[in-house]
């Protein structure tokens, strides 16, 4: 056998180029959805006016107010949260080598919600605003508490999967059990809650993107971007782990370390999003699957593609939630559950088998 270094695999180069093209075009689509999302609502604003306002060319005081104070932060929140939940799901699927992993199906979202609610009761970190919205007073304490319970759940999942190689079904059942446990614990807290605190409980069970302030948004963006870069940097490792731990180790991957650090990162991202917005289900499960259908299991592309798909899906769902029952506004979690649950059942029935 002779290794000849003259020939370039042209077909493969074309193939990777097509994947890159797919990512670029979906990003352009995201920008389009973003502008649509900002333009529609109780007051419709033309695309041109949206774009001009975003480029700091003020069109009218009223538009400035609507766009800069309401619609832009909400759209950015949807984009960030969608990307965050989607990449968390993707990475959980990769490191558990299990196609049904995601923050929601593993009960990690519920744990975060419980942690945030607990901090409101214990440390009085929430207060009610005149509009009836809950305002988080201490971000670090609230997310910290959410993160703590997330980690706890994540480690339980990791330990179970280490002791016994879990089938997908068993993992989902374990997730459902953990999820119900935390939901029950949240309900238990309600007995000790004041009216304000009670409102806060409901806050976390139905995720909504309208809640985030600019400060919360900034924290979310920072955490999500860091995780995105970290996951992208490790994409070769995740690819190797798709063919089993033994294989990955033989290719030089420190599987235990990668698994724990990646799980921590995915959990941190989830807990920040859930602490600020509440539980938004199914994004982390559905988006990576949609993308995998198109570009396969290659994490060098999947990380960014999933982030974009998550952003597009949550932003579209959010826009729908704001406009479908005008003048009433639904929490976006209602829409994602209506969309996500059928896909989840579909995956359970056929699509996910490796």
């Amino acid at each position: 056998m002779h290794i000849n270094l003259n020939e370039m695999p042209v077909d493969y180069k074309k193939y990777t180029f097509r994947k890159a093209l797919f990512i670029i075009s979906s990003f352009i689509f995201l920008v389009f959805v973003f502008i649509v999302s900002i333009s529609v609502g109780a007051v419709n604003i033309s695309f041109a006016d949206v774009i001009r306002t975003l480029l700091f060319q003020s069109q009218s005081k009223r538009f400035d107010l609507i766009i800069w104070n309401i619609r832009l932060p909400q759209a950015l929140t949807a984009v960030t949260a969608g990307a965050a939940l989607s990449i968390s799901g993707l990475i959980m699927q990769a490191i558990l080598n299990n196609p049904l992993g995601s923050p929601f199906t593993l009960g990690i979202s519920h744990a975060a919600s419980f942690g945030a609610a607990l901090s409101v009761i214990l440390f009085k970190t929430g207060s009610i605003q005149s509009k009836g919205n809950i305002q988080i007073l201490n971000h670090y304490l609230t997310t910290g508490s959410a993160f703590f319970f997330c980690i706890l759940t994540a480690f339980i999942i990791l330990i179970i999967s280490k002791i016994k190689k879990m089938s997908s079904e068993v993992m989902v059942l374990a997730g459902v059990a953990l999820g119900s446990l935390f939901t029950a614990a949240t309900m238990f807290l309600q007995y000790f809650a004041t009216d304000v605190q009670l409102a806060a409980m409901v806050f976390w069970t139905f995720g909504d993107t309208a809640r985030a302030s600019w400060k919360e948004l900034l924290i979310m963006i920072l955490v999500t971007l860091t995780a995105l870069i970290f996951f992208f940097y490790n994409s070769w490792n995740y690819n190797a782990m798709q063919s089993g731990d033994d294989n990955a180790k033989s290719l030089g991957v420190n599987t235990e370390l990668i698994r724990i650090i990646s799980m921590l990162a995915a959990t941190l991202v989830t807990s920040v999003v859930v602490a600020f917005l509440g539980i938004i289900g199914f994004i982390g499960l559905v988006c990576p699957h949609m993308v995998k259908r198109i570009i396969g299991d290659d994490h060098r592309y999947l990380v960014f593609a999933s982030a974009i798909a998550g952003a597009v899906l949550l932003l579209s769902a959010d826009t729908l939630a704001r406009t479908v029952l005008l003048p009433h506004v639904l929490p976006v979690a209602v829409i994602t559950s209506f969309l996500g649950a059928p896909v989840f059942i579909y995956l359970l029935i056929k699509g996910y088998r490796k």
Partner: protein
Amino acid sequence: MMLSVKNLSFKYKRNKVLNNISFEVDKKEIVSILGPNGAGKSTLIKCINRILNYKEGTIQVDNENIRLLSQNKIAKNIGYVPQRAESCKLTVFDAILLGRKPHIKFKAGDKDLKIVYSVMKNLNLEKLSLRYVEELSGGEMQKVSIARALVQDPKIILMDEPTNNLDLKNQQEILNLISDIAIDHELAIIISVHDINTALRYSNKIIFLKNGRIYKQITPDEVSSKIIEDVYEVKVNIHEFKDYHHIIPV
């Protein structure tokens, strides 16, 4: 010596699977590991590139103690072909490209792509290049695993039952390939096999494992019906045909 294993013992939790194993393999050599199911063949192979972390004994690759090497450094020296590869939705090209991972910092360069392409052509895999691994047959999958180990550019290749589940033609093809690469690339190759006749035909040395111990280390022409009967507990006859010994159960 390319590989030397000294006094290796290994246990999973409590049950001791390998007991005081010692042997050596030189470059261009093919060593077969034989033994009944559960004898510890896979376990031994996984200890050699530290997929399993052994506590007792020393393993040296090209005179370096692998316990002192990082997992990535080991991967540069030792390729591994698993007993059963898990399928996934990576293309054949990408699955083989993974073998370059120990050498790649972050992005695969043109050189890596060229190496992969060349090895693929040598194994007649280029037509499958953009197919997903999960759509391959057992034989094709095995070739992909071997190609991956080859692009790793190692000094040693470990193969766990590389001919299992293959039809006669594929067995033949893979075994000839293994013989060729051992010589051409000056590799030390360790394979575990079930078929004794295959081992007699293709290897330079045969190690019989029984209950986690080395029962005997022989060259193919030293085989006797007593050894086979002791290891496998079946009665056999040995025939000589065209310079090779052949084992036939009675």
